[in-house]
């Protein structure tokens, strides 16, 4: 087990390095640079000042030195300052991470709480009307664009209920009620998509497991239906479901980009998109690596959770 974890961690290092090269490379070949964007903001700057600025920001170094410098900054956890606002990246991250984390966690909870029971219901009542409804709801969740759903939710909340989510982000600890008002709708929009994928997977694996011998034995012993389904079948059906949820984390994080934009939440997604548009290299690079690192770690945790769900699984 420890060996397995160690090997996975060692494998993750080249993957993250490669990701960093991709991001670094993409940012460098992007046309236009942050300084030009900055100039547009603050009027004209002379050629000499520009050169000085470039030197201050170490943008005059050759690419490989810039890259090495950046990797060192990442390793020592000192990502530097935003080119655009001059704010230390750690400061803006401290503000943005809780927003995205709360959004993602809420979406995930909503998604799972909705998806698993409906998936089980859909499987135990296969080919009944409730199964069809469940499946159509699930496949629509995968088809409705989240930016459309978000826009509609805001519009109709405003038209029908004359209700607009409070503007100006407040943290959960300062004003829990106001904060929840801001987060519930976006989390529901995000959660629906996650729920859709999870629901489909739960349905198909529960269907499979229900045909296994030990489930028949459980029925034969005269166990109650609820116990057979939830205690015997569901736990073994959960492995692919956990994989799907793990795989959806990337989708979830991408979804935050759109949903944060629509609902005006100052999270990681919006920060990254704005940074890409402003060519704010350090911010983009840091954010993407942070997300990539999180995804790699979560995937490892997902893989490790298999052993807990199914003790027959051993890691080599």
């Amino acid at each position, binding site marked *: 087990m420890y060996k397995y974890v160690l090997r996975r961690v060692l*494998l993750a290092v*080249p*993957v*993250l*390095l*490669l*990701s960093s*090269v*991709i*991001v670094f490379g*993409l*940012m460098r*070949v*992007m*046309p236009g640079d942050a300084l030009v964007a900055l100039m547009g903001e603050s009027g004209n700057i002379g050629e000499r000042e520009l050169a000085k600025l470039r030197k201050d920001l170490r943008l005059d170094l050759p690419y490989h030195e810039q890259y090495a410098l950046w990797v060192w900054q990442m390793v020592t956890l000192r990502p530097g300052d935003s080119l655009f606002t001059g704010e230390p990246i750690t400061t803006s991250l401290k503000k943005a991470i809780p927003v995205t984390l709360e959004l993602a966690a809420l979406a995930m909870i909503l998604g799972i709480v909705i998806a698993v029971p409906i998936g089980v219901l859909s499987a135990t009542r296969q080919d009944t009307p409730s199964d069809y409804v469940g*499946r*159509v709801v699930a*496949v*629509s969740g*995968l*088809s*409705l*664009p989240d*930016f*459309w*759903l978000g*826009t*509609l939710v*805001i*519009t*109709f909340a*405003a*038209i029908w209920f004359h209700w607009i989510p409070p503007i100006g982000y407040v943290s959960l600890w300062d004003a829990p009620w106001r904060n929840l008002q801001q987060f519930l709708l976006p989390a529901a929009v995000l959660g629906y998509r996650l729920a859709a*994928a999870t629901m*489909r*997977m739960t349905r*198909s*694996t529960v269907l499979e497991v229900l045909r296994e011998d030990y489930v028949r034995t459980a029925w034969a012993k005269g166990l109650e239906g609820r116990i057979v389904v939830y205690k015997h079948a569901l736990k073994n059906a959960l492995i*692919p479901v956990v*994989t*799907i949820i793990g795989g959806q984390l*990337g*989708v979830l*994080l*991408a979804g935050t*980009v*759109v949903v944060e*934009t*629509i609902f005006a939440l100052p999270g990681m997604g919006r920060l*990254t*998109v704005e940074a*890409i*548009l402003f060519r704010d290299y350090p911010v*983009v690079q840091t954010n*993407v690596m942070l*997300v*990539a690192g999180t*995804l*790699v770690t979560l995937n490892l945790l997902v893989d490790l959770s298999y052993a807990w769900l199914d003790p027959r699984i051993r890691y080599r």
Partner: protein
Amino acid sequence: MATVTARPAALEEVPASAVEISRTRALWHALRRQPLGAASAALIALIVLTAIFADVLSPYDPLETRPEIRLAQPSWEHPFGTDDIGRDVFSRIIHGSRISLWVGLLAVGIGTAAGMVIGLLCGYCEGRLDLIFQRVMDAIQAIPALVLALAIVSVLKPSTTNAMIAIAIVIIPGNSRIVRGAVMSAKQNRYVEAAQAIGCRHPRIILSHILPNVTAPILIIASIWLGNAILIEATLSFLGVGTQPPTPSWGLMLSSTGRAFMEQAPWLAIFPGLAISLAVLGFNLFGDTLRDAWDPRLRNTR
């Protein structure tokens, strides 16, 4: 089934053509029996026909502006209303189907082809090549797809074609992995071993013995990806880095006018979104049908 399958005369060709016949049959059977499958085929047919005959079907020129009837409500003359500069939304949605389909088909085509080549090579050769390629794929997948697509489009400058390229790149890793898995299991077959034993060359083994095993998963994944590609194109256009105005693209229509006028003229947001949803729904359901008909084992891939 009670019908007798016609057997080809040449023994050598039995596997490939028989597989093809049974696949077409299985798909036909599934489409006739499953209501959702039939609905998806109808939806796709509708969208494809709309895209082909867009010029004939649309009552107005999608680019023609008539400011005097701006933001008109849906009516008999303008079934989906008009936008902020008086363009007919119905005509724009009809023409938008071309962009969505075009981007979807090309992006998925390129992404699938590239993913297939990489997957075939990795799965067949294994070893060091496989290890390196798989790490590169891991690295691409570690970056959230939308962020990667956004960055790629920013590099290439926003346009429909570049959105398509970005989507194709995002598709490659997942596809290559599925093909690789299918190749590795196909390699276990006795006939592959036999082909190697009688000294067939690698390209021949790959093309005539392994490839036929991989086509079903590829087609299934491709049909599911089609829906997703349309969704990503719409999202990129929505964020302003995909199709550029004044070309009618569903995502762009939603973001530019749909959001700005959503309270005065909700139809500007509703109809393009509905069009995207129906198109994606059609391809998703079709992919499901294909999967159930051809390869129930693939159910766990998404």
